[in-house]
């Protein structure tokens, strides 16, 4: 059933196209956000297929770090500092 991971990887390549092509910085930020969530899905499916429980820990951590990174990019776009 690794076709599922291949489909998600194709989606991640579509996000890479948007990051490369995107006309503004906001498009690139959206691409990075979506690609992070797709990586969470890929990690979870890898944990299911290989039956490795610690990859699910990695998935939780990736969710939270993707959230923090996206918030930092949004603050940067809004022209505010990080402790504002």
């Amino acid at each position, binding site marked *: 059933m690794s076709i599922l991971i291949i489909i998600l990887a*194709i989606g*991640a390549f579509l996000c890479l196209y948007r990051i490369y092509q995107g006309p503004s910085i906001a498009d690139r930020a959206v691409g990075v956000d979506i690609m992070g969530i797709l990586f969470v899905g890929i990690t979870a499916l890898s944990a299911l297929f290989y*039956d490795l429980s610690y990859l*699910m820990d990695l998935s939780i951590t990736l969710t939270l770090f993707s959230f923090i990174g996206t918030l930092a*990019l*949004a603050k940067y776009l809004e022209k505010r500092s990080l402790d504002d």
Partner: protein
Amino acid sequence: MISPIGWIIIWIGVVFDILGAIGLVRFPDVYNRLQASTKCVTLGTFGIMVGIFLLKGFTPMGIKALICGVFLLFTSPVAAHALMKGSLHFGTKMWKGTVVDEYGKDKLGGEQIDKKEG
């Protein structure tokens, strides 16, 4: 009995994920892209997590999958909202077919709709 339901939910989640990625490429401006891709990808990845929980049950992997899904439902809409507000204040113009922009009229001194063709 519970196993085919889990696989079906995982397949639905993966299909939602790839539809969100296609929407990220195909839609015309950053706001449409953000709406389509964030909704689809959040629901899709949450579906993957629920499917893994149904397949694995109350084992460590299943509980972690459920926790990861709950975190995803909490964090992803907040991140999308912050990105949307950030790109509005950054000055990204909306698509030329946009009908109304009340936020720009109130807070930013004029509608942020792209007037020129192209």
